């Protein structure tokens, strides 16, 4: 079943700070993705991490994956005001179907 019914967490930080957002997924998956949704836009993929990777980096982003606890984290270093958005993790089923997990509403104050 999906787990989209959980409310978003809210996080507010100052520009320049680092932030880490956590999520957990409930079903077996080999791929965890992080998506960002800005106001008025649809979600856009940020980073994808596979079950055989413990860590993945892309620019200021770093994702980790712990399959034993079925959890993932996304860290952003040196945040900018433009990083203000909602961040979701998502797991992908065997049939290329994406299920979203918990999300974090991040506000970066300039």
């Amino acid at each position, binding site marked *: 079943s999906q787990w*989209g019914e959980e409310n*978003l967490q809210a996080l507010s930080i100052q520009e320049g700070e680092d932030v880490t957002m956590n999520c957990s997924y409930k079903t077996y998956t080999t791929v965890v993705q992080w998506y960002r949704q800005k106001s008025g836009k649809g979600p*856009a993929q940020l980073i994808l991490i596979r079950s055989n990777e413990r860590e993945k980096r892309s620019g200021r982003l770093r994702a980790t994956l712990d399959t034993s606890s079925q959890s993932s984290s996304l860290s952003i270093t040196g945040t900018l005001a433009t990083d203000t958005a909602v961040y979701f993790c998502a797991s992908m089923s065997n049939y290329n*179907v994406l299920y*979203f997990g918990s999300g974090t509403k991040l506000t970066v104050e300039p």
Partner: protein
Amino acid sequence: DTTVKQNPRYKLARVGKPVNLICSQTMNHDTMYWYQKKPNQAPKLLLFYYDKILNREADTFEKFQSSRPNNSFCSLYIGSAGLEYSAMYLCASSRTGGVFAETLYFGSGTRLTVL
């Protein structure tokens, strides 16, 4: 061009009336999805088309219908709207196989308000 387009951007509907939302993509993706997103919640998968095969989630099976007349277009149909259908509806597409097979490309959504 990785654009998924949704029309209309905003839609008002009356309780008990039908609603039809439209989505299109020009990337020749074989899979198209519909998600429902309510405020402060994560998007929830409603259904998806893999080529011409429709797959609907068990808990929304009877509430939503869809059609895909060709590869580029997909619609989401609500036969009788209720207040609980008020939400943002997101369409997405993806291509199976290849380097970016797991990436979904989303449209900007249609905000449906049922009165």
